[in-house]
């Protein structure tokens, strides 16, 4: 009983964080057709901005939403500076890998300079602990497990039930046709990045509430998010969400039965197997579309 509860809980929790990260990567890929390698840095920056605002005396209930909005702006600016100028180039996918990696590295070192290497922590969403099914869990983690699906559902509603969301899905499918119905394609690209960055920032705030933060805290989640989107298929929003939870459960089960040490190896084993069976799931098929 307690084994099952532990795996279930661990899977839901990790899956939530992965989903928050992966959805942003997938959103940017489907709309613009590029991989954003500064996505992990968005996560880190969201956490540090929240920390700074709390340090300045803002209550968490204000600081966290403000940090998320700040991250939307950061995402927009990053898109305008290192992605938009390259749109239309034939080798854009590779070039953007390099420019976003470079921008991410600059921001990471900027954070190190501004905030220093000492680990920090931000307040939990909710303080306290509970015991469920014989497993001790923090209320912060439970809050994350509950809030994440709500946010993902809101994103889904936005994409599928609003005209602006429709426009984002349209740009994802056919850029020329989007221009010809009068969509502001550049603004929609900015919006995709802004949403992705806020979601990553929120994931950072979630993470900073139960683990120590450091300027490199985003690199492992970025790697995991990449695995999730590769595994789940990249051309939609729902694929990565399911994959995120699946991988969350897989990791939780692995670390329960085989230990934390073996988990990454097993995860990559599964990933490689997936790629062997469905190689077209990755870069080859660039069919894009948000659903």
């Amino acid at each position, binding site marked *: 009983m307690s084994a099952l509860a532990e795996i279930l809980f661990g899977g839901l929790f990790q899956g939530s964080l992965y989903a928050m990260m992966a959805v942003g990567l997938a959103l940017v890929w489907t709309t613009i057709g590029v991989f954003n390698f500064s996505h992990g840095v968005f996560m880190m920056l969201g956490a540090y901005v929240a920390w700074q605002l709390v340090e300045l005396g803002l209550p968490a209930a204000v600081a966290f939403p403000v940090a998320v909005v700040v991250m939307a702006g950061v995402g927009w600016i990053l898109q305008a500076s290192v992605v938009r100028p390259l749109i239309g180039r034939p080798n854009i996918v590779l070039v953007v890998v390099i420019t976003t990696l470079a921008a991410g590295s600059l921001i990471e070192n900027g954070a190190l300079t501004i905030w220093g290497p000492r680990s920090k922590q931000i307040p939990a969403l909710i303080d306290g602990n509970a015991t469920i099914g014989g497993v001790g869990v923090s209320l912060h983690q439970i809050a994350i497990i509950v809030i994440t699906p709500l946010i993902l559902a809101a994103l889904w509603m936005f994409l599928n039930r609003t005209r602006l969301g429709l426009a984002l899905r349209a740009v994802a499918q056919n850029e*020329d046709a989007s*221009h*010809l119905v009068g*969509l502001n394609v550049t603004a929609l690209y900015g919006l995709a990045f802004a949403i992705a960055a806020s979601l990553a920032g929120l994931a950072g705030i979630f993470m900073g509430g139960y683990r120590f933060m450091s300027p490199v805290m985003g690199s492992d989640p970025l790697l995991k998010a990449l695995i999730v989107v590769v595994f789940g298929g990249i051309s939609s929003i729902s694929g990565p969400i399911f994959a995120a939870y699946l991988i969350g459960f897989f990791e939780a089960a692995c670390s329960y039965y085989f230990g934390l040490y073996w988990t990454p190896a097993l995860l990559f084993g599964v990933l490689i197997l997936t790629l062997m069976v469905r190689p077209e799931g990755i870069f080859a098929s660039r069919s894009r579309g948000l659903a």
Partner: protein
Amino acid sequence: MNPILTVESVTAGYGRVTVLHDISLEAGRFGNVGLFGPNGHGKTTLLRAISGLLKPKSGRILFDGQDVAGLSARAIVGTGLIHVPQGNRLFPDLSIADCMALGAYSSRARPHEAENREKVIKLFPKLAERWRQRVRTLSGGERQMVSIGTALMSHPRLLILDEPTLGLAPKIKDELCASVMDISRGGVPLIVVEQDIEFLLELTQQLYLVNHGAVATEIKPGESLDHGEIMSMYFGH
């Protein structure tokens, strides 16, 4: 009548390749305009330059007196100049309903959304039956209907069609030609690129033969030619 669209010495191309060489033409003085000519000679490129998908290197494009050369495609849609591109690739994973909503996206078209939707459904009743179906699941003819329907949702003052009947079976093609005639009778001026000369002769009052990125011949009303003469213009001088 004043021309609604004037293309003045437009040069345009892709990268270092120049496709349009100083091309000039006028539309709307006599009615609908047809463009024809061999493949790969710049008809699509001209339409892309007109609708702002491609920035001309030089020249002017006057739409209702306003120079739109160099404006964004979005701004040009905002003036009511609407372009249905070649090949109806559209939005494969959106439904017909979604495409129609996108057609009415511009602030100019939004107030007319309901009225234009009625028109589209009246023109293409087949679309109503498949309203919630994804575009990728439609036949070629239906996809072309969605393309044209989306453009009508944009409340066009001038409608540009690039090879609307390309690749359609004869029966479907006839239906589509009839619908395009209906649109014209409804008062929307047209510029149509088409391989089917018979259709162009029926639909348009003025023809341009585009060859090597320039106008090789202009055929004005009263100078109507027969099919054979046009074929000889195509293939030899």
